[in-house]
């Protein structure tokens, strides 16, 4: 892939026009650049994420999708020698604004990882972790939150009789739904999902996609996925990342059926990736 050609071809892809019918933008980046040490991984990323929509990020391996996702809740700061420039606004305010702590930000923007990572604690304590960390310790309150979150993650019926058991006794798909429940328990506005089903079997994948469909009524979801069909199934908008650049960003239907860029067309029709 010739870097010069990608950049030269006027790569500030047109953002979809704002119509009145579209929900408002809740999260946006402008000219986001990221370096791992001296290596630049993201170039001038500008994207708008809208409320109660599912925005998918697709692209070949190593093109910066997960990295970009983690800049949204500043989790990328855990990596040493990372440098980020550009603007990221959440609900109109910069995420680097000193008046809002990074912990508060991460409470409003939750994240689910590729490999399910429940804590080595009981199912109950996993879901209660978030609320506890935020100071809620009263048992009746926690019981409520745990049940509500597990129901919202479509896991309650399967675990309600074994809440005190270790989370590792659950299957992979169940563990992932537990991680989703855990995130829901802190009542975020946005949920970031980093390839949430790539480590799961097809049935669990289906259940989680159904869950996403349900969740998007209340939450805004940004999902990174390797699986183009998944993006086509669940998302409203799709961004195609290539070599750390946004190649195209459009309504999902438009991007898949009528891509504006040649490279997008090649990728979605499977000619590379």
């Amino acid at each position: 892939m010739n870097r010069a050609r990608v950049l030269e071809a006027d790569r500030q892809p047109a953002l979809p026009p704002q119509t009145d019918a579209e929900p408002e933008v809740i999260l946006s980046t402008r000219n986001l650049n990221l370096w791992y040490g001296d290596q630049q991984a993201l170039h001038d990323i500008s994207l708008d994420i809208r409320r109660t929509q599912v925005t998918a990020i697709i692209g070949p391996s190593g093109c910066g999708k997960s990295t970009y996702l983690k800049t949204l809740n500043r989790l990328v700061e855990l990596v040493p020698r990372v440098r980020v420039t550009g603007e990221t606004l959440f609900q109109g305010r910069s995420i680097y604004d000193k008046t809002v702590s990074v912990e508060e930000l991460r409470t409003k923007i939750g994240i689910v990882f590729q490999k399910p990572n429940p804590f080595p604690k009981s199912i109950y304590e996993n879901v209660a972790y978030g609320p506890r960390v935020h100071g809620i310790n009263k048992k009746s309150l926690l019981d409520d939150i745990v049940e509500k979150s597990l129901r919202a993650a479509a896991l309650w019926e399967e675990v309600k009789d074994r809440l005190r058991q270790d989370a590792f006794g659950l299957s992979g798909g169940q563990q992932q739904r537990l991680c989703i429940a855990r995130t829901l328990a802190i009542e975020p506005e946005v949920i970031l999902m980093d390839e949430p089903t790539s480590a799961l079997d097809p049935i669990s994948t289906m259940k989680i996609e159904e869950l996403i469909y349900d969740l998007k009524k209340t939450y805004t979801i940004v999902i990174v996925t390797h699986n183009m069909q998944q993006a086509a199934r669940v998302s409203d908008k799709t961004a195609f990342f290539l070599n750390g650049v946004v190649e195209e960003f459009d309504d999902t239907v438009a991007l898949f059926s009528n891509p504006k860029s040649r490279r997008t067309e090649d990728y979605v029709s499977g000619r590379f990736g």
Partner: protein
Amino acid sequence: MNRRIRVRLWLNNLLKTAFMLSALFALGVLTVLLVQIVSQSVGWLDWPFLTGKLSIQPERAGILGAIVGTLGMMIVAAPVTLVLGVCTAIYLEEYARDGKIKSFIQTNIANLAGVPSVIFGLLGLTVFARMFQLGASILAGGLTMSLLVLPIVVVSSQEALRSVPQYLREASYGMGATKWQTIRRVVLPASVPGMLTGFILALSRAIGETAPLVVLGIPVLLLPIPDSFMDTFTALPVQIYYWTLDAVLTPEYANLAAAAIVVLLVVLFALNSAAIWIRNKFRKRY
């Protein structure tokens, strides 16, 4: 072709036998040691021995004082070394950034582990016994021991912290937890088994150390049982040492020493088994 294969196979078997013999040798030495000690202690290791006070007359001598002394030292050493060791490990693993300072600290802690224990005795004598004016007390002995085994606790605690996978920390931060919350609620609980194992091994080392106590000035014959931490005392390994020395003149002392050694070995064996059991039980499932 056939000959070459035969040579290879022969070499293979030869080495296998050599390695096995080497392991058997180590086992053999241990067995000889144990048999010799246990046979010398027969008849001398009885209840009055375990509960009796010291006496010049070998038939009436008991190790209660030594047990109390060793126990008292452990009561002092255990919390000191645990707290200092774990806090140091937390700082190094969770807070300190990679760089010259961190390397410097870690190198020096590792070097401390290699310092002969006699030197720690000198440290204890100078700082605790004389400067802090604690004398050759249980307190001074315990503090000296805690420093002696501190590197063991630090290194094993660091290992335990390091073995907690990063994705658990990420999950915690992702939910808006602070660093300390993450350490307290996720990292520390997950690393407790490893830390416990290291701690027990550190204690078992401290129980058996003789040289530092000798330098510190533990008396040769101590009749009264210590009843405060400021009292001077005797400890099991030191008692064994002095009895062995005096066995030249009074042969029965050799039997007393052997009996005391058996007691020490039983304690050490129990501690080490506990450490191994804990480690195996919590062999991690992530």
